[in-house]
């Protein structure tokens, strides 16, 4: 087994395992921590696929911003591990069934397209370094307009978040 394969298997194990643990653990803070580890492993996957810039951005945005937000919210609400009620068995079984069904459907769909029969392109040309990525992202015929719209989206999200969490005036 080559190094790459080994690396891939390890990273996949970490990803799946921590993701599952994130869902399964009772304490929300534990969940958050497991999720951060999972994100790191996904960043590792990106590196494996030679998308360096994306790996770094992933870490900054997800682990560095989104999970921080989650942790703040969890601490704001003072959630404890004994916060949740006892759960009945039927939704568990049903959710498990649906897990299998969805996985099966997705794999079937993709496998029907038979991607592994095609030649993997190997031009040797650089297609994903920062330079090329920057060009594609900010090119006029590229993705400049969606880029600008994404920034507006973030602005709106910011304003929205501020508005939503304002305390209402108690005077009616």
């Amino acid at each position: 087994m080559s190094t790459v394969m080994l690396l891939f298997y390890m990273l996949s194990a970490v990803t799946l395992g921590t993701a599952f643990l994130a869902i399964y653990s009772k304490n929300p803070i534990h969940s958050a921590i497991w999720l951060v580890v999972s994100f790191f492993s996904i960043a590792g996957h990106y590196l494996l696929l030679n998308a360096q810039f994306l790996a770094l951005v992933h870490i900054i945005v997800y682990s560095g911003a989104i999970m921080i937000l989650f942790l703040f919210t969890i601490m704001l609400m003072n959630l404890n591990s004994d916060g949740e009620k006892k759960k009945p068995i039927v939704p568990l079984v049903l959710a498990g069934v649906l897990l299998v069904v969805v996985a099966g459907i997705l794999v079937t769909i993709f496998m029907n397209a038979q991607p592994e029969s095609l030649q993997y392109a190997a031009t040797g040309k650089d297609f994903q370094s920062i330079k090329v990525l920057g060009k594609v992202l900010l090119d006029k015929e590229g993705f400049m307009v969606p880029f600008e719209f994404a920034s507006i989206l973030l602005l709106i999200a910011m304003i929205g978040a501020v508005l939503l969490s304002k305390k209402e005036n108690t005077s009616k």
Partner: protein
Amino acid sequence: MENVLEIIGIQNYILLSALMFSIGIFGVLYRRNAIIMFMSIEIMLNAVNLLLVAFSTYHQDAQGQVFVFFSMAVAAAEVAVGLAILVSIFRNVGSIDIDELKNLKG
């Protein structure tokens, strides 16, 4: 330089992504805590991102990665607003167990 995917094989990535997505769905359906449900949604998004990048390498095209950028931006925005809503609900109802939020019944 050969494509790394020739070693790993795209079907592995498909499987990985599908499994992660399903785990995310399991989390959304099973847990009752809204925060954990949100986290499951993030897992799902990540699965999709991973697959996008894999296929970007497969086609040697940068557009896949650009899409991932935008996906991440949207994910960030969504988390911000979603958590703000959750905080509002917590302030009004007192708990974020979704079994308590049943006012819209028919």
